[in-house]
């Protein structure tokens, strides 16, 4: 029985088309992932060279004035790249991989973007995640929409119905064969990606693996559910494609529109102006207007004297810090708003497997919003660490060549992993079970 079913499936045109389509696009997506990783490596190498060179050159010009030297020097913090991000590039093309900052005010530097072609950003990356979320369901639809109706329309169903008592079982077997094929291709592509992209077979990989399998289980159940109504092929095709459009295009897009409109972030622009004004107005004010706030923040520097009538670096860097402090409140509000966007999106995604799959892929790959916010927090700490290590040296005008510049190589930021298996798998499992049970109940009427 199985052998016959397999043979008849392998002879269909759709089998061949699907195989070629999935494998080709899958391999392309893995190559795109590879290129993405190479670009990251290049950027990291360039930033290392840039930092080393610029320290050496500026050291030559401004040896005698450490305050001025550090006005120019930029120090780089890089988000620790992980190869798994090549499967789900997510938001990492919009958000920069690294930030090279001076020890001046951070607020004006922290949100600088990297260069990327906006057309590409708009059309999105063709990564393996895309292939799994969009194309695999399409192939499942193409292979199953006439699971029952083709037998009916070709007139073979009557013969079958007469020959076997378990008609539902027959359909399930047919479905099983198609699922087996799709899962086979999926697993092949995932392992191929792991090999080509050097992805460790760690917890995150297996989580992504399981999530993909569950996601396709969900689609298989959905296809079976529509088939179980025993309508004709045209109706099934129409219905399944419509559902696909609703799940992969309309609902996520509408949720996104809603989230963007409901949680607008004017704070981003406000903080930008506040930072500039908070810093620059200090030039025209008494030195105390700066120093009181600065010494409040960092009482350890209280003992340094600030000349009233002339320029001093302690005053200058104090002013710079005051700009950051002026924008601090609004900036925090901004992060909270963005966080809120994330929370609401995830909540809705709980009920929509496509959205959940995308968000969880990004999260496992470390390319989601949260990991970028985490990087920004890391950047704040990094910046403060730099400032606090340099402040006393600047204030005492230590000769620049007595400082060990070797230690100021680029630094890496590790995102703390957060993997909640229940949250990850439960939504898809639940939706799959509900639809699967409904489909089976429907099939009993066959």
């Amino acid at each position, binding site marked *: 029985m199985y052998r016959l079913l397999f043979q008849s499936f392998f002879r269909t045109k759709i089998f061949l088309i699907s195989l070629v389509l999935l494998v080709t696009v899958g391999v392309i997506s893995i190559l*795109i992932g590879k*290129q993405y990783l190479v670009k990251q490596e*290049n950027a990291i190498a*360039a930033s290392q060279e*840039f930092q080393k060179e*610029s320290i050496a*050159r500026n050291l030559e*010009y401004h040896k005698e004035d450490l305050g001025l030297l550090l006005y120019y020097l930029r120090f780089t913090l890089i988000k620790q790249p992980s190869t798994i991000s090549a499967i789900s590039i*997510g*938001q990492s093309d*919009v958000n*920069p991989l*690294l930030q090279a900052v001076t020890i001046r005010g951070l607020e004006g530097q922290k*949100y*600088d*973007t*990297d*260069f*990327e*072609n*906006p*057309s*590409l*950003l*708009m*059309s999105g*990356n*063709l990564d393996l995640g*895309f292939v799994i979320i969009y194309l695999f369901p*399409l192939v499942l639809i193409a292979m199953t929409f006439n699971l029952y109706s083709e037998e009916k329309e070709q007139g073979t169903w009557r013969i079958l119905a007469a020959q076997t008592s378990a008609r539902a079982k027959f359909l399930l077997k047919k479905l099983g064969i198609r699922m087996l094929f799709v899962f086979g291709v999926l697993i092949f592509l995932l392992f191929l990606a792991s090999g080509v992209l050097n992805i460790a077979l760690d917890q995150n990989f297996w989580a992504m693996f399981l999530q993909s399998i569950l996601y396709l289980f969900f689609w298989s159940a959905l296809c079976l559910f529509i088939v179980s109504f025993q309508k004709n092929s*045209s109706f099934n*095709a*129409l219905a399944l494609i419509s559902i696909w*459009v609703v799940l992969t295009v*309309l609902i*996520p*897009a509408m949720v996104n*529109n809603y*989230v*963007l*409109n409901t949680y*607008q*972030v*004017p704070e*981003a622009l*406000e903080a*930008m*102006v506040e930072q500039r*004004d908070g810093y*620059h107005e200090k*030039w025209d004010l008494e030195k105390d207007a700066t120093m009181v706030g600065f010494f409040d923040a960092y009482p350890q520097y209280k003992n340094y004297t600030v000349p009233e009538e002339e320029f001093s670096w302690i005053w200058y860097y104090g002013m710079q810090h005051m700009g950051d402090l002026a924008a601090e409140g609004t900036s925090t509000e901004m992060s909270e*708003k963005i966080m809120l*966007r*994330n929370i609401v999106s*995830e909540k809705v995604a709980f009920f929509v497997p496509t959205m959940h799959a*995308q*968000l969880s892929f990004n999260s496992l790959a470390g*390319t*989601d*919003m949260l990991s970028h916010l985490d990087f920004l927090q890391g950047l704040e700490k990094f910046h403060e660490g730099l400032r606090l290590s340099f402040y006393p040296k600047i204030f005492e005008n230590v000769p620049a060549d007595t400082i060990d510049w070797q230690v100021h190589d680029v630094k890496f930021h590790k995102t703390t992993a957060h993997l909640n298996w229940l949250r990850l798998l439960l939504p898809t499992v639940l939706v799959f079970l509900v639809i699967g049970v409904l489909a089976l109940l429907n099939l009993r009427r066959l």
Partner: protein
Amino acid sequence: MRKKVIFLLAGQLWKDAFRSKVLLVALGLMGFLLLFSAFSGWENYHDLNHTRDAIQNEAQESWENNPDKHPHRMAHYGSFALRLKHVLSVFDLGMENFVGNAIFLEAHKQNTVNFSEASMSTGLLRFGEVSLAMLLKVIVPLLIFYLGFATIARERENGTLKLLIGQGISRREIVFGKWLGLWGLSLIFLLSVFLVVFSFVLLESNEGTFGDSISRFMVLFISYVLFFAILSAITILVSAFSKTAKGALVKLLGIWLLFTIILPKSLQALGYYLFPTPSKIEMETAVEHDLIQQGDSHNPDDPHFKALKDSVLQVHKVANVDDLPFNYSGFIMAQGEKLSTEIYKDHQARLFQVYQKQNDLERYSAFVNPYTAIKNLSMAFSGTDFRSFLHFKAEAEAYRYHLAQEMNQLQMDLIPNKGKAGPNVISNSYWKEFPPFEYRFLTVSKVFQNELISILALLLWGILGVFGLTKIATNLKAL
């Protein structure tokens, strides 16, 4: 061809359509989506522009309120340029949410345009956005296919096609009648969307912008009418060539997936793959490298600036820069700004050329994919394409350069050289006089030039459609 017969057949298609559940469901769904996207598009446009306008004014106000000071302080104080949305962005969001919205303009430095919505969004943004244009580009084509796949194929299956021909109706009349009917149906969706857009245009326009908005609107309208004519023709063609209605539907669904999702995305990805771009840090390194080669104003021994100094001293016949009739450091900064801006612009232009190469692959695919033609055209005329963004960026950079050089000029003219008598600050009336940043959209004629390929492709598709319909009419099989 008899007009009356064609209209009769078209009318019949309408009657059948309105009897079917598909159209009712489609109309219901479209009505809901139309309301949703009109509302969310308007809210987005209105709120964001309102915020940006307010911030732009706030920034200008604080600029003007600066006390008397050294002009170079003001060059560092700088200004902001905020990107305003065109009213037609309510129609087509285009790249709106993927490009930055605010840029800090200061001396010596070209900053990035920051705070794109994408940078503050979750991964959901990649599923796309719902806008009025998206409905017309993505959803309505699917509906046209749903409504039209059976037209000829099913008549043939039922044998009614033979009857029609037997009654003396020509094949050409059948084909054109069906096409006209389907096209007409699609125009219901189109007109309702454009009616909404028209009211937005009226609502938001003033004397200065009405001409621009209405001509953009008209181009969009005509393009979409043509686009739907092409899609209807494709539907009829596929239906006519398919043995069964089911076969026609499956083919049309394949075409839809290929046109709207698979082709555009793969080609964009392929373009990216073929023409890699440097990251920002790589470009910054290259810019700095060039700058050091050509003239580094920070380096006291730089040959370029040393030669410049000698020639200035010679022209003015003085031995010391402090004896020059203008402020020398203002002069050096002006020269440095000029040089660094040129170098930066040069690198940036090269980067954008690579972007263009990346995009061209998809752009030229308009000749095989009408969706691409309408997509690019629609974005461009809605003021939400890449070129519109580049235009904003160029205007902002021009303003930045002007601001920096104006401050350098003031320093040269009004600030005394080191050791000379005179004030170290100038009156704040100079800032008050400096005009604020005002963004002007690309002119319509410029947009036409940018979108020549898309327009040409769409027209060719139109011709191809009519040709195809005439051609199948003669070959149409009755059985």
